[in-house]
């Protein structure tokens, strides 16, 4: 009974996967995106990019949720944050995740950048991915800066004033920068509106396609070695997986389809022999 259900379920899901693959090629894409042979040594260091992607995804998701209650006006901004923190169900959790993952995001970006720098991952042909990454870093710093003011409390207010006045010291454009951010020549309603617009739409809209470009360039060249080397390794990985499957098949059912098993083992042995 259970065996039949299992067979039917796996058949149905296989049909769905095949159907999707036939029409979108999604399985091939996912295989290409997800499977990559990684050296065992220092493997944890290679998770830093994924950690950045994960935290920034959290930012997008919790940010969308916070917008359900946040009000970007000078007389209501603080109250709405206060409502989120004290009255909204799981408000502390949602805002807490937004706040803490923003902090961890900056840390992960620093570590990720350091890892790429010290492993020489920015070298040819990956220079452009480094450039895109640096643009992403600047955009994230912009998001961190503009998000601070939105709470409209003393901490965020004065930190933003300090940040804007740092901008005012920049040569030639200092005045324009500070007036652009202030929305005039004094901190007021326009400042909060501008920071809100920049934080919630301008920078996320700029950051999303650049994340796509970053990931595309990563997959184009692979994290370890060139495209050619990468596909070669992937082919070897698939080969090995198939061998393991056959090996399990053989040990499980000794009398079943001996011919295929034998031929395959011969292939594998021959392959390994010639490979080494």
């Amino acid at each position, binding site marked *: 009974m259970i065996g039949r259900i299992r067979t039917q379920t796996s058949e149905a899901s296989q049909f769905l996967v095949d159907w999707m693959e036939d029409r979108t090629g999604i399985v091939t894409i996912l295989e290409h995106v997800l499977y990559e042979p990684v050296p065992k040594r220092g493997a944890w260091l290679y998770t830093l990019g994924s950690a950045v992607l994960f935290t920034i995804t959290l930012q997008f998701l919790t940010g969308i949720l916070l917008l359900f209650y946040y009000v970007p006006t000078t007389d209501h901004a603080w109250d709405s944050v206060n409502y989120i923190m004290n009255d909204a169900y799981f408000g502390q959790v949602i805002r807490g995740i937004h706040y803490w993952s923003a902090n961890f995001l900056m840390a992960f970006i620093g570590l990720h950048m350091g890892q790429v720098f010290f492993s020489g991952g920015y070298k040819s042909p990956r220079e452009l991915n480094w450039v895109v990454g640096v643009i992403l870093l600047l955009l994230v710093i912009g998001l961190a800066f503009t998000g601070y003011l939105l709470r409209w409390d003393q901490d965020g207010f004065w930190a933003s004033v300090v940040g804007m*006045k740092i901008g005012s010291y920049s040569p030639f454009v200092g005045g324009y920068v500070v007036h652009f951010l202030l929305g005039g020549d004094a901190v007021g309603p326009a400042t909060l509106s501008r920071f809100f617009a920049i934080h919630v739409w301008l920078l996320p809209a700029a950051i999303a396609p650049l994340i796509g470009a970053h990931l595309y360039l990563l997959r184009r060249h692979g994290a370890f070695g060139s495209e050619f080397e990468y596909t070669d390794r992937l082919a070897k990985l698939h080969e090995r997986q198939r061998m393991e499957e056959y090996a399990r098949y053989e040990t499980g059912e000794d009398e079943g389809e001996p011919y295929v098993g034998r031929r395959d083992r011969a292939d594998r042995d021959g392959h390994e022999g010639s490979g080494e």
Partner: protein
Amino acid sequence: MTRSDFLGFGVMGAIVGAILTIPPVAFVLGPIIKTDVLGDSNVGSGWQEVGPVSEVPVEEPVDFVVNFPLQQVYGTKAIENPNVQNSESKFTLRNAIWLSWKAPIKEQGRQGSNGDVIGKPQRPAILDEKSEGFTESEREEIMSKLNVLSNSCAHLGCPVRWFPEKQLYLCPCHGGLYDINGGWVGGPPPRGMYRYTEAEVRENGKLYVKHKFNIEKGLDKQEPYVV
């Protein structure tokens, strides 16, 4: 491509490009156009009441909060008449003003190395007798001895506070130090505290100011802004 094609594309391209770019750019950069090109200010240009000068003690500065009207999106319309109460729900520009009596500078300091050597602050003697109804010459004397300082630090704009035990203004953000006259004593600020350049004492003994500061452009190749 013929000459007329080129001209046609050029002219049409310029027109279409202008139609597509000028409105959004002007929309977003409006504040820059208004403040830097047209020279407008969001802060009301009228006189604002600060407080009675007789309340300023001899050796301690005292701070007054002034709500300047702010015309910015939905801020208050300029309230030029100080007797009108500002609505609580409207946003005004809350500035703190430090008032103190000038201490005579005995030895001029040098910005970046040492502050001024100053004496005791001098309070006009007339204030011991009366707190309002000053004559023209008395008002002039009061104004010549009064420090009217913005609490916005000249470094990065944090609010400075008077520390009686040190007899200095201290900025909480990066440790800028100023003496009672607002002169630079220590820390990162490139200059002394901002002074209100337009201030006057009236017959009722109260000080009135306009939102104008002694901003010196090109000081140390930096452009300080009062935020």
